[in-house]
């Protein structure tokens, strides 16, 4: 019997920010190929966990294993090389690049970006560029942005920028996708489109870990979720089970109460 190794494992991860314990002993693991939600009340440390996994922050202690290798503390660009892609809470496009260029820039393949190749190996990089453009146009078409491919991405609407992020993530062909509140500030119609895009990512074989407050949206996409509160994991399971879990309700209700 083969034991399936989880693609991502966090073990007792701790992170402080000038005295505030954002993450205090967080432990969980995720199976490959599934879409998992990461939920919890505000201040639970969810976004910090994303930052830690993607290499934007270094944990104070604990281990993060990706595909069996310890990766805590590795910088973001190295995590990207290993196969991690992430989105941010606010859409971050490269404003004065066109929509198509944004997707092209999401490549994780660094070969074509060497300076010397631009002068001495032009045929090769032109070929790679042509292939990339075909794939990029295809992905833009999938999210419905093909018509604005030559627009400056800074001029796109908020919804279009969100879709662009998914095109970029898909283009990068990562193994693990970290989504940080993809539904924030998005109307319900766009939400359905986003859900479809995330499901596409899963279909393409990527593992998805999604931080999200909108539980209805999350249910459409993820079959199970991890619940965090005050920096620790307090529950884990399918959405159906979590709805009945008293610990989860307490964590959320506690937030409701303190907001009065």
């Amino acid at each position: 019997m083969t034991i399936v190794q989880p693609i991502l494992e966090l073990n007792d991860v701790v992170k402080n920010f000038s005295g505030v314990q954002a993450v205090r002993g967080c432990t969980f693991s995720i199976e490959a190929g599934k879409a998992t939600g990461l939920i919890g009340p505000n201040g639970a440390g969810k976004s910090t966990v994303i930052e830690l996994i993607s290499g934007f922050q270094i944990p104070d202690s604990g281990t993060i294993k990706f595909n069996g290798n310890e990766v805590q503390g590795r910088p973001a660009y190295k995590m990207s090389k290993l196969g991690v892609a992430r989105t941010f809470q606010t859409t971050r496009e490269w404003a004065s690049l066109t929509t198509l260029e944004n997707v092209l820039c999401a490549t994780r393949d660094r070969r074509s970006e060497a300076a010397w190749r631009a002068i001495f190996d032009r045929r090769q990089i032109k070929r790679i560029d042509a292939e990339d453009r075909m794939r990029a146009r295809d992905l833009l078409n999938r999210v419905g942005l093909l018509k604005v491919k030559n627009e400056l991405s800074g001029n796109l609407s908020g919804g279009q920028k969100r879709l662009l992020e998914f095109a970029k993530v898909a283009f990068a062909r990562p193994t693990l996708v970290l989504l940080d509140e993809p539904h924030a500030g998005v109307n319900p119609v766009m939400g359905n489109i986003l859900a479809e895009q995330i499901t596409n990512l899963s279909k393409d074989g990527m593992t998805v870990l999604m931080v999200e407050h909108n539980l209805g949206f999350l249910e459409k996409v993820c079959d199970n979720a991890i619940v965090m509160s005050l920096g620790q994991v307090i529950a884990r399971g399918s959405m159906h089970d979590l709805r009945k879990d008293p610990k989860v309700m307490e964590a959320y209700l506690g937030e409701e109460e303190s907001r009065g």
Partner: protein
Amino acid sequence: MLNYWVSVLTLGLIFAMATMGLNVKWGWAGELDLAMFGFIAVGAYVYGVVVLPPSKLPAPDHYILGLQWGFFPGLIIAMIVVSLLSLVVGAVALRKLRGDYFGIVTVAFVLCLAIFISQYTFLFDGFPGLDGVPQPFNGVLNLSPTGYGIFFFALTILFTFIAYFILELLANSQFGRALRSVREDQSAAMAYGRNVYVLKLKAYVIGSAVAGMSGAFFMAFMSAFNPYAWAPAETFLLFGAIFVGGSGNGRGVILGALFVFVAIQEITRLFPVLPGNAQASDALRFVIIGFLIIAVLWFRPQGLLPEVRDRDGEPGPTLKDRSISFRDGWVHRGQRIIRIANRSKSEAK
């Protein structure tokens, strides 16, 4: 008269070279390098001491080397030395610093360099600087002064074009695109696997290499150079050229350089010389450029020739109705014409 304009344009082109170098750092990578003129000066000095004969100045005046080599070796060595120097500066300054702090560190560096070179007279003869640098190829060609002026102008045009060509190759490649992504949003660039530090360092060294080249040309052209032009003010004129011409656009920055260093220069020359104030026209030029920069940043920050936008093989310019592609637009128009034709046909019946 011809002599004068050839000379002015040659100098303008050399400034254009320097501006192209700065464009790599600022236009492509978004680095506010205020030490640029320091690199140009080092390029000038290194070229000088390679090309000059050994120092025969009375002590304590002295300069190093004095190899009496030719133009090309001088040029190449100048570029190599400046590239190495910029590698050191960039490696330190680009590590963690945000944009404006980086600018300040470059100012500190260039001021240290200026003081060091003026005080440590052994290197490049301190304050008086170098002079008497032989003109390239003059011994071989034996041209008249006018003829030589034209020759040097042609040489400058040639190298400016070579630099422009190579830099455009870089700009229009994935390397250029990677730099632009770093410029726009560093964190996002990191999230997609770019080692931002290394990329910025590459841009810094490439831009400095071009600076070294322009420095060598300055020295070759003027045959003399001293450390008065180190201050950030001179570098800021280069920035002015970039803002006016169009940051990120190769042709734009050449245009901007010609505007700032030829047009404005000539216009301010027309102003009357104030008695007792020999630097008046210089000062006035700086004041004008200062206001010009503020005005350009307010009214047209993208400059005269904005950065060229990727069109993915489609013809430009921008279309009125952005949701219809160029081809579809013509099909649309064609169908309308057919409809009108059909309608008038049926009406005619």
